[in-house]
């Protein structure tokens, strides 16, 4: 009963979604498309402020920022699926149940992986920077 309740409380189970043949790769595609939109368009904006392509008026160029927000949403959704679905990716590669019984939870990647923490920190900084505009 306990495991069932635990599973149900976590519905929709990201392990189930990311365990499908297409879940992980589909999220990767969305992550890269989002990356191009977000970093590309925000990068254009920043470079414009730094003096590149001076002929572009800054104020109207903000019209393009919603597309960067679309990219951001794509990246957040697919990125969260990577982190919360990481158990599915471990399954089969590692004896997943052994990991769990040793007290290693899949989400410990959030605690253990310094690079992921740095990535999230810098994304947060970039997000604050964008909000300031």
């Amino acid at each position: 009963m306990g495991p069932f309740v635990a599973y149900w409380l976590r519905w929709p189970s990201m392990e189930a979604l990311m365990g499908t043949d297409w879940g992980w790769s589909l999220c990767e595609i969305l992550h890269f498309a989002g990356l191009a939109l977000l970093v590309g368009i925000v990068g254009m904006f920043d470079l414009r402020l730094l003096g590149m392509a001076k002929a572009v008026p800054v104020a109207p160029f903000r019209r393009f920022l919603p597309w960067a927000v679309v990219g951001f949403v794509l990246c957040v959704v697919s990125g969260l699926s990577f982190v919360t679905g990481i158990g599915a990716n471990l399954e089969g590669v590692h004896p997943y149940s052994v990991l769990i019984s040793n007290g290693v939870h899949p989400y410990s990647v959030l605690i253990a992986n310094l690079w992921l923490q740095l990535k999230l920190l810098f994304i947060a900084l970039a997000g604050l920077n964008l909000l300031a505009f």
Partner: protein
Amino acid sequence: MEFLYWLQDSGLATWVRESDALGSTFPYTFLLALHAIGLAMLVGPNVAVDLRILGYGRSVPLASLEGFFRLMWAGFWLNALSGLVLLPTSAVTFLTDPIFYVKLGSITLAVVGLRLIHREVFVGRSGIVTTRAKTLAGASLASWSIAIVAGRLMAYNGNVRWATLGALVALLLLLLVMTAGWRMLARGPGWSVSLRRST
């Protein structure tokens, strides 16, 4: 084939693939990161130019966007070079894979399209949008989408590829239906107006 195996086992390819410089697979990871940065530098601004041609953000003068072409070409060369170094690391798999040629083909189309857009819209004309420019912009968006999808699918084998393509098409159809539904809702049901008028 012989050549591909030679390429894959060459010193550079082995070093990029297997070196544990700085404590991890640093060269390979670093090159992959460069490839992603180049992608953002090239595809992001190109999408913005395409969207502007297709009518978004009309208050930005189209001709002024020419200043960002330098950025796009820098991204292109960054990716061409990093891709050229990454290619030998699995030369046999990549160069015998149809989807790799789909990726290269769509990138070629997109880059040629970018040059044509440049000639059509920017050279000698102060950013006048022609029908031809709009067609090119739409084709450019499509080629970049195909390039990103194909590039990502290269990491997987047959079964996963078809499943992912199916899921992607399903997702796009869902988005299309939702957008259409939202527009109809936002416009309001036309039949109620005609009903009211008829009574």
